[in-house]
C-alpha cells in the first residue's frame, strides 16, 4: 500500500484535473444595485456559462452600454484547444504514474504550474482586452475609467463590484499540482528508504539463497 501511495496520489491528481470537464474553473460575479444577488459568470475549460443559462447574455447587455466587446465562446480560441492540453496532461500524468519515478512526478507538477500560470496570464490578457478595447460609438463614455475585471479578488468598476475567484474545477486543478508534488516527495522518500533497506534485504536474501543452494 505504502509503496503504491505516490501512484495513487498521482492518479488522484489526474482525476482532479479531470474535474475541469465537470465544473467551472473560474467565476466572475458582478454586484450592482439592480443585481443585489449578483450576476455570476462561469468560465469552464471548454465553454462559458453562468448560474442561469442567460448570464452571458445579461452581462453582454450590461457591457454594451460602455462599448465592451461581446463575450462569445466562438471568439475565444482557447476554449477549443485548452481541453486538449488538459487531456494531454491527464494522459501524461497516468503515464508517469505507470513509470512511477520521482522526477517525473516533479516534472509534471512543474509543467502543470507553468501551464496554470500561462493560463492565468492569458486570462489577464483577455480581461485587459475586454476592459480596454471599447467601441468608439459606446453610448456611455467615462474618460479614464477601466472596465477590466480583477484577475483575482474584488474591484469596483463604476457601479459594479466585480469579484473574480477560482471555482470548483479551478480548486481541484490547483490541488492536482500539490498532489503531484506530494507524490514526488513520497516517492523520493520511498526510494531513499528502499536503497538503504534493499542493501540489507538483498544480502539477507542472497545469503538465504546461498544456503538453499548449499
Amino acid at each position, binding site marked *: 500500500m505504502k509503496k503504491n501511495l505516490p501512484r495513487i496520489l498521482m492518479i488522484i491528481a489526474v482525476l482532479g484535473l479531470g474535474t475541469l470537464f465537470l465544473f467551472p474553473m473560474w467565476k466572475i460575479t458582478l454586484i450592482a444595485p439592480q443585481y443585489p444577488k449578483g450576476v455570476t459568470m462561469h468560465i469552464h475549460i471548454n465553454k462559458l456559462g453562468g448560474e*442561469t*443559462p*442567460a448570464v452571458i*447574455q*445579461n452581462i453582454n*447587455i450590461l457591457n*454594451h*452600454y460602455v462599448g465592451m466587446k461581446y463575450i462569445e465562446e466562438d471568439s475565444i480560441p482557447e476554449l477549443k484547444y485548452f481541453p486538449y492540453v488538459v487531456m494531454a496532461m491527464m494522459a501524461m500524468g497516468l503515464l508517469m504514474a505507470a513509470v512511477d519515478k520521482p522526477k517525473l512526478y516533479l516534472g509534471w507538477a512543474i509543467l502543470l504550474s507553468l501551464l496554470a500560470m500561462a493560463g492565468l496570464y492569458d486570462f489577464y490578457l483577455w480581461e485587459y482586452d475586454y476592459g480596454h478595447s471599447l467601441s468608439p460609438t459606446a*453610448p*456611455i463614455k467615462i474618460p479614464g475609467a477601466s472596465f477590466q475585471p480583477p484577475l483575482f479578488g474584488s474591484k469596483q468598476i463604476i457601479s459594479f463590484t466585480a469579484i473574480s475567484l477560482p471555482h470548483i474545477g479551478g480548486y481541484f486543478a490547483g490541488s492536482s499540482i500539490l498532489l503531484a508534488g506530494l507524490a514526488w516527495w513520497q516517492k523520493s522518500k520511498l526510494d531513499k528508504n528502499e536503497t538503504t533497506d534493499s542493501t540489507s534485504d538483498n544480502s539477507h536474501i542472497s545469503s538465504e539463497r546461498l544456503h538453499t543452494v548449499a
Partner: protein
Amino acid sequence: MKNHYLFQFIHFIMIATFGLLFLPSCGNQAGQTNTGGALGDDVASQVYVAPGEYDEFYAFMSGGFSGQIGVHGLPSGRLLKVIPVFSTDGEKGYGFSEETKPMLNTSHGFVPWDDAHHPELSQTNGETDGRWIFINGNNTPRIARIDLSVFETVEIIEIPNSGGNHSSPFTTENTEYVVAGTRFGVPYPQKDVAINTYAENFKGMLTYVKVEEDGAMDVAFQILLPAFDYDLAHSGKGNSHGWTFFTTYNTEEKSTLLEVAASQNDKDFIAAVNWKKAEEYIAQGKYQEVPAKYAHNVYDEKTHMATSTMKDKVKVLIPSECPGLVYFLPTPKSPHGVDVDPTGEYIVGNGKLSADLTVHSFTKMKAAIDNQSFETEIAGVPVLKFEEVVAGSVKDAGLGPLHTEFDDKGNAYTSFFITSEVVKWKVGTWEVLDKASTFYSVGHIMIPGGDSKKPQGKYLVALNKITKDRYLPTGPELCHSAQLYDISGDKMKLLLDFPTAGEPHYAQGISADRIVPNVKKFYPIEENEHPYRALGEKDARVERNGNEVHVYMTTIRSHFAPDNIEGIKVGDKVYFHVTNLEQDWDVPHGFAVMGANNAELLIMGGQTETFLWEPKSVGVIPFYCTDFCSALHQEMQGYIRVSPRSSNIALKWGLGEEEVVQ
C-alpha cells in the same frame, strides 16, 4: 329650604368644576385608546414589513366590478399586482393583444368586462396548495383559472344555461370540481317568453366544472333545479367530502320587486348536492345531453397564445330521475353565505335577513336522509325537516349575517352587514366570544385557509362595502376598504386599513412559502413556440401577404429590431409580433404606436405578443418602448413610414446601418 337649594347649587358647581377638570384627561384617555393605545400595543410594528422584506401571506382580493384580482401582501396590505381576468387591461395589453383577445370570447362574442366575486385557491386534501386560483365572472357566467407560477389568467370557461354566476367557484377538497350556481333563474332553454311566466318557464342550473390534474377545466354536468336564486356555495370536507352546499333565496320564484317579493318565505333552502352520486348517474348514462353554446378559452404558455373553442352540448341531470342527488335543507331568511367548518361537520347558513345564524349538522342530515324523513318534495328534490338537520344557532349575534370563516382553534367568525361588525363564536357551543366593529358594512371576511381544512388563524381581513371617511376623500367615488385584524388572541384587534382594487367581495389568503418557490422569473426563450416568434435579431423581418403585413420584431435592451420600416401602405393590416429576447427577471419591454386604436403591449422576457395596427393616413409614425427598461430606454424607439395605397415603395426594414431590402 333656601340653604338646601344653595347647598345643591354649590354641590352642582363643584361637580361641574371637577368635571371640567377631569374632562380633558378623560378625553386624552379616550384618545389614547383609539390611537395612542394602538401604538402602546405596538400595532404599527405588527403590520410593518421592513423595506426589502417579504410579507408572510399573499391575499387575493376579488376586484368585483373591476373584473380583476388584486394581489396584496399581509400583514402590510401592500398591493403587489392586479391580475387581469375578465376585463381588458390596457396597462398589460390584456384583451388588446391578438394573443389575449380570445380569452374574453364568449357565446355572446367578445365581452370586455365582468364582475368577479369569489377567488378560490386550489386545494389538495382540503388544504390550499398554491397551484391556481379560480374566480367567477358573475355577469356573463364564467370561471377563470389563474396560474400562480406566473400570476396570469390561463383559462376561462363559460357556464351555459346560467344567468349570473354568483355561487361559484368554491372548489372541492382535491380540486376535483369547481362549481357554478346561477343567481338568476332563466328560461331553460333560453326563449322568448313573458317574464311573468317565471315559475313555469324559468329554471335554476347548478354546474360542476371538472378540473384535471394539469388544471384544464371542462363542464362535466349540470343539475336542473327550480328557478330559485342560487346565492353562494361551499363544498364539504372530511366526512362531508363529496357534497356541495348552495344557498338559495327567492324560493318564492318571483321576477319583480324582489326586495319584497323574495323576502316573504320564513325559510329558504340550502341545496345539498351529492356530487359523487352525480358521477355515478353520469357513468350510468342517466343524463340528457342538450345543446348549449359556451366558450372555452385556453392560454398556452409555450405558444404564448390563447385559443377559444365553442362547445355545443352539455350533460344535464334531472333530480326527479336521479334520486339521492339533491336535498333541500330549510334555512331561515334568505341565507347568503354557506360555510363548512374545518371538520366538515357543520354547515353554517348565514340568514342575511335574520339576527341568528343557523348551523346544520352533516351527521344529522345524513341520518334524516337515511330515515327518509322528508317534509315535502319540490321538483323531485326532497325537503328535509328543519328540526332534524339543525345543530344549533348562534343567537342575537348581530344583524344581517353574511359570511363565516374559521380559525384553527375551533372558532368561527361571521360578518354582520347591518350592524357592521365581525362576531367571533365557538363552533359547537354557539357561544358569542367577541365582537369587533368594521368601517363600514362588512361583506365577506377572509382568514388565510379559513374555508379549508387547515385555517391559519393569525389574521382576519374584513372586506367592507362602504368606505365613507376612512381615507383622504377622492370625490364621489371612493376606493373600497379592507381591514386587517389580529385574531391570534382571545380578542380581535384592528391593525390596519388598506384600500383595494375595484370592489372586493371574497378573498383568499395563503402562506407565501406555498407560492414563492414556484414563481417564474421569465419564460425560457428556447421553449417559445409562438408561430410568429423571432428567436434572435437574425430572425427579425417584415413579410407582406396581400394587405396583411407581419413584422417579426425583437426587443432587447435597448433597441427594437427592426426599428425602421418602410413600405407600409394605408389600409394595411400590420401585425407586429414582438418577441422580448430578455432572459432576466423584471425586464419587460413595452410597445406602442402613435395613433393606434389599441393599447400597448407589455411583453415579458421570452414572450411573443402581437399588436394589430391599421394605419389610416400617410406619414412617418413613431413607436417606442413604454416600460422604462434601462439607461437607454428613452432611445428605444423607431419609425414606420406609411405610404399611399397606390405607392410602389418597396418593403424595407433595418436596424443601425444594416438594411435589408426585400
